[in-house]
């Protein structure tokens, strides 16, 4: 799926994560991962993010993940929601 519009899910509250998906020219997907626990979990957060985005067939998007110490299930849920919102028409 192509990202059609700005979409967000989650929050910047502690133990949550804010996922932002923005449309971009072309087919590539550009990932930005930020986390308060980047040293311990940065790689895991990135791989989960890329996996969920790839499963949805995301293209033409910038994905920003701002992790505030969320559980992996929370991250997955936020990613799914943001992807759904980004795909939906206005």
């Amino acid at each position, binding site marked *: 799926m192509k990202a059609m*519009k*700005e*979409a*967000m899910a*989650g*929050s*910047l*509250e*502690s133990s949550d994560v*804010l996922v*932002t998906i*923005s449309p971009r020219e072309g087919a590539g997907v550009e990932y930005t991962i*930020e986390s308060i626990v980047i040293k311990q979990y940065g790689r895991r957060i990135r791989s989960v993010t890329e996996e969920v985005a790839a499963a949805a067939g995301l293209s033409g998007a*910038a994905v*920003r993940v*701002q992790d*505030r110490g969320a559980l992996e299930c929370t991250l997955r849920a936020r990613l799914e929601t943001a992807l759904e919102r980004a795909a939906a028409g206005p």
Partner: protein
Amino acid sequence: MSSAYGDRDVREIRDAPDLAEREALLASRGLSAPGGEGLVLGLYEGDALRATGSLVGDVIQGLATAREDEGGGSAAVLVTALLKAAAARGLGRVAVFTKPREAPVFEDLGFRRLAIAERPASGLGAALLEWGSPGIGDWKTDLARRVEGRPRPSGVVVVNCNPFTRGHLALLEWAAKLSAWIHVLVVEEDRSLFPFPVRLDLVRKGTAHIRNLEVHPGGPYVISSATFPTYFTRPRPGSSDDSVSELHAALDLEIFRTHVAPVLGAAERFVGTEPYCPTTSTYNRLMKEILPAPRADSAPVAVREMPRVEQGGEAVSASRVRDLIRSGRLEEARPLVPDTTWEWLRSPGAEPVLERIRTRDTRH
């Protein structure tokens, strides 16, 4: 819009009593309600307002948390709601103007710091941060690509040119003699009587004969109102609007020094003396203070000031040209502008602009 966070609830504040409560919360934190607001949100716990913030265009303003809630995550809830509201309006990037000591709170929420300015004399300080994309990094990458291979060190002139006069032309010709390469940044904010595309075009046409000079759109980080919202820290009693415009100017110059000048390889900035406008004259004074100062974080930029060109005993200025148009004496403006500007002023395309100047009494 309404969304629940446990027993807390974010709602839009609309009614007068609620707005008054919000104003009281802002006042308790030393802030005044910013003007011209789009969306005002409140974080409520039951009926009690715990935090507030608003979105004006793409700028977050008037953010305050009840003192006893500090550190309790209210700011994160509210900022999230404001970011989502911005996204719903298609905005991928928002800015925030806040007190320098609040900057780390926003950095913790993923905002990038663009500049901090503190004016010890007035006790005022402000920090400007942004969130999202396209951000200043994207803008700098584009600008760097545009100026690749140009001679360095260069000189820079920032101009509004509303419209382009012989005064501007003299300044640019002077600068081009003193510097290997001149980058002219034309203020892009479209708040002037002459629309931006016209101003840009007249500067380009009027300087086509200068070989070592290049004209660029100023973009969102050079004297733009998007980065200068009307949101400030509380001035000390007795300080006036002057200290506020001083703070504006200082922030713009900080951004110029730390972000713009390095991309352009600028060692010098050229400016004309300002005999009339107090805001511009404050700006020039601060420029001489902020840009050349030796500092560890960024290279200094020398400031070279040229006296205004005079014609008939008066300084040649764009405001004089506008005054002449306003009073129906366009012909008298002819000696004040280059032929390229004159030709445009006499073209059919200029008629709506001239009409607007005649009928509207604005400073710009």
